[in-house]
């Protein structure tokens, strides 16, 4: 087991490594051409499976800072360090004309000592690739401030896990799957509050890290995901998220996930998100809580 004391230290190390790149980009300012015309932070950050949104859940916003006349793009690296596991996720996304978002990302889930306890070997790692697409159907979360109508998008995430054999052993029915979701996002500007609700149809176990479907259930289930963010300034937002997850595997209970976060965007080129996240029980290790750190660079 990883000693608890080192978790913050490791996150700090990751941040220290990424900070110089972020600061260099931050200093280039946001007035030059080639920077998208969306307002700061209104493109969201990048969620763990690579879509624009919060940390855990996609939002209806199209990633990048491109307006309907522009193209935006960004890259992200996220490290989640909970008690007995670590997750690295990284990828890129492109937003086309504030209408379509394409994303590619990879999640590497390190079982650390739990892998050894399960006979898989210490540091046994599941790797999942996710291809995402999101389309904005209607609405503008930011500018339509005289109506309650939110921005609404639909999306899909195709995920493929590289450990088919282990997944079959734990009871998963498939090593790949597609999540379908609909998101509604609204900025209540006069309250400096952003709300998002996402409904996801999924079979994924632990985001897909433990495959898709299981001995208990192999049907799509609708799961709700919600985010609330309060804007402290143009550069800072704080908030929380909740993500329901199915419970398909008889071998281990799966719980919902939540986080509380602070996001900082010194410029449109860079944002840094720190969160305290609770992923619940994962296989034999209960109450998986820890730090989430995510760096995003783009335009």
């Amino acid at each position, binding site marked *: 087991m990883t000693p608890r004391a080192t978790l913050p230290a490791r996150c700090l190390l990751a941040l220290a490594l990424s900070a110089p790149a972020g600061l260099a980009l931050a200093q280039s300012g946001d007035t030059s051409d080639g920077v998208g015309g969306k307002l700061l932070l209104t493109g969201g950050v990048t969620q763990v499976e690579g879509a624009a949104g919060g940390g855990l859940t996609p939002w209806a916003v199209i990633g990048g800072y491109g307006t309907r006349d522009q193209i935006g793009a960004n890259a992200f690296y996220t490290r989640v360090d909970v008690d007995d596991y670590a997750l690295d996720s990284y990828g890129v996304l492109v937003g086309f004309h504030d209408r379509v978002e394409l994303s590619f990302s990879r999640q590497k889930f390190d079982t650390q000592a739990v892998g050894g306890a399960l006979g898989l070997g210490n540091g046994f790692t599941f790797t999942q690739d996710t291809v995402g697409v999101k389309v904005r159907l209607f609405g503008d979360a930011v500018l339509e401030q005289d109506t309650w109508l939110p921005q609404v998008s639909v999306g899909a995430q195709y995920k493929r896990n590289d450990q088919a054999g282990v997944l079959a052993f734990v009871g998963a029915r498939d090593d790949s799957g597609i999540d379908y979701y609909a998101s509604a996002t609204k900025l209540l500007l006069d309250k*400096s509050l952003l709300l998002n609700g996402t409904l996801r149809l999924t079979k994924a176990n632990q985001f897909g890290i433990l495959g898709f479907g299981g001995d208990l259930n192999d049907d799509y289930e609708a799961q709700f995901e919600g985010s609330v963010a309060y804007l402290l300034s143009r550069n800072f937002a704080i908030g929380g998220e909740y993500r329901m997850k199915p419970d398909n595997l008889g071998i281990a209970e799966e719980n919902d996930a939540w986080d509380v976060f602070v996001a900082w965007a010194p410029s449109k080129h860079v944002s840094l998100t720190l969160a305290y996240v609770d992923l619940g029980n994962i296989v034999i290790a209960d109450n998986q809580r820890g730090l989430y750190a995510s760096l995003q660079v783009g335009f």
Partner: protein
Amino acid sequence: MNKTKLLVLCCLLALAGAAFAQATPEEQAMLEEEARLAAEEAALDAAAERDPSAPDPAPAHPELRPVLEAFGGREGLDRLMDTFMAGLLADERMGPFFANADQERVKRQLAEQFCVILGGDCTYTGRDMKSSHAGLGIDRADFNRLVEVLQVAMDAHDVPFSAQNKLLAKLAPMHREVVTE
């Protein structure tokens, strides 16, 4: 009848003109007062020129009066506009829109507009948002850039972020009239 009236009016004006030719300080003050009235009348004319199909460019929100106080009242808005206009002129994207504009008038009318929206005792003398932006070729990125420059100006004047957003929430829907590209 009308001709007679016109003639009398002309005579009066001629007399007045002769009198003003040697204006005393008192008369000078009267002249200034008249100029002010003329400006007000011109403003009313501008209001009359408003596109009836365009939404009210300055809908009053009396409940936002505390926000106006956070901006430092009308005087605060006037000071804000100096910073805002300087920011617009210095901005690569915004500068060209304002370089050849009557900047004093734009600043005054923006202060008036914000003041009315925030429930102040002001009169907006400008045109509606549709007529005043027609043909300028403004796109979304331009609109948002203006918001950003305004945010920087409001920060510089220590307007609390929540108060900034309460004003911006009322301005944001104007994108429908302002953005034409």
